[in-house]
Each structure stands twice: as structure tokens, then as C-alpha cells.
């Protein structure tokens, strides 16, 4: 069944859109990532113009994140105080990121800059998570005396001022590290046009020392606001949110997110982390290949809007 998208001005298969939404939503519910880093390349692949893919992708991420947060909420796996601290940093950061984006656009190399950021951050984070979770899995299998598990390791992070209790995470730390993590993710989100979940999730686990189960809900909670903000900014500035496209992606996405959350519950923390690591690495490698291999068509056509 073909459907004509009013803003994108292309006609696409409705079931394909439902499928894309479903896959991304599934991963979103399972790992607590928004899926922005997946949905934008997928939409580009089926011929949606880039501006519309980014803006409408953000809108879809809002829906699947809300669906995911509600599923996590029932298990009390959302740390609201932590979410608000991250969000405060995130808003500051994304404001700065949009500025950097505008500056790179003026220099004329924004495409390359975005692609290189993808390869660099996805590659680095994917590799780190992969190594760590693989070690954790090997340790868990090896017979012998159980390793003494401490709730968390005390580092310099715990000596900073402005300490606050984060009950759901079982942490008593300064608000500065989460604020900084939120700000960093915000900058990257502003530049790369993604919610930043794939950076936020590992940062919360490894830098802040939050338990994996709480991380997913809290990350999704923060993503709702960042992508919601992005959606409205795109709608106002460039009229690139296609509601028809969003509706189909969302219908697939919310159902997928619910199923993903159910599967995620049955997996162990390290299994979830290694799967996310593989996914992130796969996207990074794909983008790196696109940059390195000679493309089939060297030329590209971009219509300009008549004034």
C-alpha cells in the first residue's frame, strides 16, 4: 500500500514505514536508546529527504521513548531526580551544539563533520562497551570463588561538592558529573541530530556507576524532552516534520518498544550491553565504509526551494 507524504512529497510503502518504526522501537525499548542514530539512515535509505528524515525521526523517538518510559515506570526503574539533572545539562549542551552546527554549516562541511562524529563516537563507545561486557560475561561463566561485588567503586567523582541522594540508582554523588554528562550529550545531540541515548546509556553506567536496569528508564525519560524540543524547533524553523510519516513510524514504534521492553526484562545486564555494543559498532562501521569506499554515483542533486 503506497502512501503519499505531504511534507516529504514522496510516495512510499506504508508497511515499510511501519516496519522501520517497529524495528527501531523494539531496540529503543530494549536498550533505552532513542534510536535516532538508526532511524535517520534508514529513512534516507528509502528516499526521504535528509532534513525531513532528521526532524521526523526525532518526533518518532519521542513516542517510542514515552512508551518505553511508561513500561519502565511500572518497575520503578526511572530515577527522576537524576533525569532532571541530566536534562538541565542537556538543554544547555544542545543549545551550544546547535550553535556549533550552524558554525560548521557556514564553513560548508557539515555533512562530513556529522559523519565523522558518528564514526568516532559510535565506534569508540561501541568498542568500549563491547570489551567491558565481554569481560563481564567471561567472568560470570568462569567457575571459582565469586568476585566480591561492591555497589560501586569510589573515585574522584565521589569527592566533588553538591552531593545529592539518587535513591532509585542507590547513589549519593555530586550533581556535577551528571550535569556534565547531560551537557556533553546535549552538545552531541545538537550536532548529530540524535537524542543521544547511545552515549548517555554507557556514560551513566561507566562514569556515574548507575545500575543498568535504572539507566534505561532514566535515559528514555531524558530523551523524551531533548527530542521533543528538537521536533518543535525543526517544525518552526524549517517546516520539516512530516506528520503522516511520523504517524506510521510511531504506530510501528510504540508497539515495537513494548515488545523490546519485555524482551529486555529477560536478559541480563551484560547481555543487553554486549548487544547494544554490537549494534552501535555495526552502524559505525557502515558509516565508515560509506566514507572510505568509492560511491556508485559521485553526483547528488539537491533541489532548492524557490524563494
Amino acid at each position: 500500500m503506497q502512501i503519499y507524504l505531504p511534507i516529504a512529497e514522496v510516495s512510499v510503502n506504508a508497511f515499510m514505514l511501519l516496519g522501520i518504526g517497529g524495528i527501531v522501537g523494539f531496540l529503543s525499548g530494549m536498550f533505552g536508546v532513542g534510536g535516532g542514530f538508526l532511524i535517520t539512515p534508514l529513512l534516507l535509505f528509502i528516499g526521504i529527504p535528509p532534513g525531513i528524515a532528521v526532524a521526523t525521526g526525532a518526533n518518532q523517538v519521542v513516542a517510542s521513548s514515552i512508551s518505553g518510559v511508561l513500561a519502565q515506570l511500572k518497575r520503578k526503574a526511572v530515577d527522576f531526580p537524576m533525569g532532571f539533572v541530566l536534562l538541565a545539562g542537556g538543554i544547555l549542551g544542545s543549545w551550544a551544539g546547535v550553535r556549533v552546527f550552524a558554525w560548521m554549516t557556514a564553513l560548508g562541511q557539515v555533512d562530513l563533520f556529522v559523519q565523522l562524529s558518528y564514526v568516532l563516537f559510535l565506534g569508540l563507545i561501541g568498542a568500549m562497551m563491547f570489551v567491558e561486557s565481554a569481560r563481564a560475561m567471561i567472568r560470570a561463566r568462569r567457575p571459582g570463588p565469586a568476585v566480591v561485588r561492591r555497589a560501586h567503586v569510589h573515585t574522584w567523582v565521589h569527592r566533588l561538592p553538591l552531593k545529592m541522594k539518587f535513591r532509585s540508582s542507590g547513589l549519593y554523588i555530586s550533581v556535577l558529573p551528571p550535569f556534565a554528562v547531560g551537557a556533553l550529550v546535549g552538545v552531541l545531540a545538537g550536532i548529530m541530530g540524535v537524542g543521544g541515548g547511545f552515549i548517555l546509556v554507557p556514560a551513566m553506567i561507566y562514569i556515574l556507576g548507575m545500575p543498568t536496569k535504572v539507566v534505561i528508564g532514566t535515559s528514555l525519560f531524558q530523551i523524551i524532552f531533548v527530542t521533543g524540543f528538537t521536533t518543535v524547533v525543526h517544525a518552526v524553523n524549517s517546516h520539516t516534520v512530516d506528520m503522516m510519516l511520523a504517524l506510521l513510524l510511531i504506530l510501528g514504534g510504540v508497539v515495537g518498544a513494548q515488545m523490546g521492553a519485555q524482551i529486555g526484562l529477560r536478559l541480563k545486564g551484560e547481555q543487553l550491553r554486549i548487544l547494544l555494543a554490537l549494534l552501535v559498532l555495526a552502524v559505525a562501521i557502515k558509516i565508515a565504509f560509506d566514507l572510505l569506499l568509492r560511491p556508485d554515483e559521485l553526483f547528488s542533486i539537491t533541489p532548492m526551494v524557490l524563494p
Partner: protein
Amino acid sequence: MIRAALLALGLLALPAAASETIVAGLSQSRVSITANFDGSEILIYGAVKRDAPFPDGPPLQVIVTVEGPSTPLIIRRKERSFGIWLNRSAVTIDRAPSFYVVATSAPLARSLTETENQRHGVTLDYLIRAVGITAEAEGAGEFVEALRRIRLNNEQWRVEESRVLFTEQTLFRSDVVLPANLIEGDYRVRVFLTRGGRVVDHLERNIGVRKAGLERFLFVTAHDQPFLYGLASLLLAAVAGWAANAGFKLLRR
């Protein structure tokens, strides 16, 4: 006496070709793009009207063109630097049609001389307006060539030779398929009648392609009320997210 002379002069001044004129109609003059729009087929038909007996000479031919709205374009070329393929040079095309079909009753080379083609702007060579691109990038000609190749490949531009049915040098019909990926605007339909490569008569019609219903509503709202539209998109996302969660809760019970 003077009147008779003027009349004679007038008759002389009239080109001989004017004795054959074209009449044409379209199966539809509007195309509405609705949510399930899946392309459209337009029938362009007509006849040759004569007020003199069948003239001698090479046979008549019919050329039909359908042209979508023109826009400026940027064509970019990827080049390799530091081992990475990136967009290095670009050329701006002033105008090129978003959609173009040329259908003829005989091969183009036999139906139209180059001079007449240039005068009436029939084939794509005369519709891509690219002024001063040689200064913008090296090998600017390649960019225009690439534009033509890409658009012909994805059938946004088509050349359909010998596809116009032309019966008894009088009746003609041509079916033109409009693809699903249409953009809004006025589509210009031109019909040329040629003899020996020279245009004997031509006429022009318009097809209005417009979004309709929900498509129209969403498009207009997105441009006129962008903030409300953005909030509505968020609301849609929130309601859908909540509904899916509530629905699954019910299912698990």
C-alpha cells in the same frame, strides 16, 4: 480596390502551414494528490483541422511534452581527499523541470529540426538553464550530464519516441503516466504538429497538480501554524506512546 489589395496581402502574409491547425483535449485538467495517491495517467488526444485539401510533402508528426514545475538545483560531486569521499565541488543549475516527458509519433530526429527544437525548447537540452556554471567547478559539463543521467534513470525525465498514436494523419492520442512522486504545481502540456521537421502549429494546456484533503491540510498547517503543528506532532507522539503502553497492559492481563 484597396480593401481587395489588403486582403490579397493578408493572404500572402499568412504562412502556408496555417491551413493545418491542431485541436486537443486532456482527459483531466486537475490531479488531486490524496493520501493514497499512486500516480495518475493522463490522456492527451486531439485532431488536425484542415481548411484546405491534404497538402503534399513529408507526413505530419505530433510531439507531446509534459513539463512539471522548474526549480533551481545544486549538483554536488564527491571527490576523494585524505582517503575519504566527500562533497568537494558543486554547481548551481538555475532552472530544470522536476518532471519532463517528450512523446513523439516518429523518432525525434525525423520529427523536429534542431533550429525548431531550439526555438520552441522541446527537448531537455533547451530546458536545463545553467548560466555561468563553468566558473563554479572544473568540468562543469559533467555535472549537467550527471543530472540528465540520474533523472532519466529514475524516470523523472522520459523520452518516449514513437509512442504517440497518430491515425490517418488526423487523429492522435498519447497516454502519459504521472508518477507517484509528484510535486505540486502547474504542469504544462504542449502539443506540436510538425511537417518535415518544421513546426506547423502548436498549443499549450495546463494541468493543475494539487494536494487535497488531509494532505492539503497538513501541508498548509505546517507552513502557516508551525508552532501549533510542532506541538500537535508531540501530542500525537505522546498519545500513541501512552496508548501502546495501556494496550499492552490490557493484553498481558
